[in-house]
């Protein structure tokens, strides 16, 4: 059997120092995705790489703190404990994708940090975190930096981590939204999944702010800021003419995101339908609020 050395640090400082000294080690928290990759045959023993740093005992990575404006979620905290906060605390646009991930037993192991960093499960939380402008805290033994979800995940889907850097916290803004929507469509295979997250606030007959994000395209987190800014201060209900012109903008943004194949055309059409549906929902919600 292959030799595996497992480090089980208890503090974040210790973890970061360990990771600096052992940059080739595997960071392990929930492990639900990793263990599927390292299973061999009928199992028995997982074929882990030589060094593993287990994050399950690191207190700082396994807690939630809440202030008036933010929710700080430790990256190694399991999804079930995050979901226990409930719809009233957790933004609904984030609650939806998290509660739809895998099964209850897998959610007891899987972590939000893992969902953000592991490429194969990105359809779920990233678009939702992006539309609410969540921030990610990345730390090394000697530095801390904050980044947005969009800039953390590269065009090719790799997490933008510098040597010795660990995703430690996810900062979720606790803003009130008049309307929030998350939908995931397509099969379970990552290539076929398309997810849409959108939030909007329209307090006085016009849109104050509207964000939307598509996940699962070539760019893992696709925001179209130009389109969002065109909707700023637009009166509600948003006219069909404006929606059609926005769809033309969306088409342009989707141009390089999908391949010219039947599947690509289907994905483009689905992305358009999701956006149109979101706008219709915003309109009907605004009428309810009048």
């Amino acid at each position, binding site marked *: *059997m292959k*030799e595996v050395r497992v480090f089980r640090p208890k503090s974040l400082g210790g973890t970061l120092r360990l990771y600096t000294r052992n940059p080739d080690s595997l960071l392990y928290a929930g492990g*639900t995705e990793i263990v599927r990759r390292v299973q061999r045959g*009928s199992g*028995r*023993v997982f074929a882990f790489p030589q060094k593993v740093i*287990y994050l399950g005992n690191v207190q700082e990575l396994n807690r939630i703190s809440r202030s008036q404006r933010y929710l700080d979620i430790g990256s190694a905290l399991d999804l079930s404990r995050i979901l226990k906060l409930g719809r009233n605390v957790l933004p609904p646009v984030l609650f939806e994708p998290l509660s739809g991930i*895998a099964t209850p*037993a897998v959610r007891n192991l899987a972590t939000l940090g893992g969902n953000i960093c592991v490429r194969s499960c990105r359809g779920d939380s990233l678009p939702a975190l992006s539309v609410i402008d969540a921030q990610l805290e990345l730390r090394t033994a000697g530095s801390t930096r904050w980044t947005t979800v969009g800039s953390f995940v590269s065009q090719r889907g790799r997490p933008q981590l510098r040597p010795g850097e660990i995703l430690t916290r996810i900062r979720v803004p606790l803003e009130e939204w008049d309307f929030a929507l998350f939908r995931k469509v397509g099969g379970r295979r990552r290539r076929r999944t398309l997810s849409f997250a959108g939030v909007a606030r329209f307090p006085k007959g016009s849109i104050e702010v509207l964000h939307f994000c598509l996940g699962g395209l070539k760019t893992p987190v696709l925001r179209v800021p130009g389109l969002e800014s065109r909707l700023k201060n637009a009166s509600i209900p948003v006219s069909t003419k404006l929606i059609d012109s926005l769809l033309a903008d969306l088409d342009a943004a989707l141009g390089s995101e999908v391949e010219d194949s039947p599947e690509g055309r289907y994905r483009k059409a689905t992305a358009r339908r999701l956006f149109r549906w979101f706008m219709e929902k915003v309109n009907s919600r605004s009428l309810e609020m009048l």
Partner: protein
Amino acid sequence: MPGNVIKLRFTLNEKQVLLQCHPGTRLLDILRHDFGLEGTREGCSQGECGACLVLMNGLSVNSCLVPAFALADSEILSIEGILSLKSFTDIRKSFADIQAYRCGFCSSGMQVALAALLLTKREPNADEIRRALSGNLCACGSYNGVVEAVLQSSSRKRRYGRR
């Protein structure tokens, strides 16, 4: 090689146990092969079917996804431990009365999922039961029977009180 073996201390079915094994050994294999607890079944080995569920620190987890090194100082309750709990006797009776299961392969996983639910909710409704069982696959389709058995056991408790 010394690095290949780790010493673990954890609680298994309310007893402290010590184990030496490879750090990558699956909890499922530790239970079945090292402790002879074969009530925990191996299904898909990918965390999808729920046949290998156990309670880890009071939460249901797929034992096929948990490596040995994550076990240190944890509390594991396998189906054998759950069935010996007094609080679970009523439900076992209802399963038998209704003949909830067909082949029974999924039964241990389902009962662990239900135990996890009943730890947080004493008298769950049908929706909550179905949600708790959403990670358990049953090829024979015994879901409705299981839901009915849990509801029956709850109504029996209401009628006759806790014993």
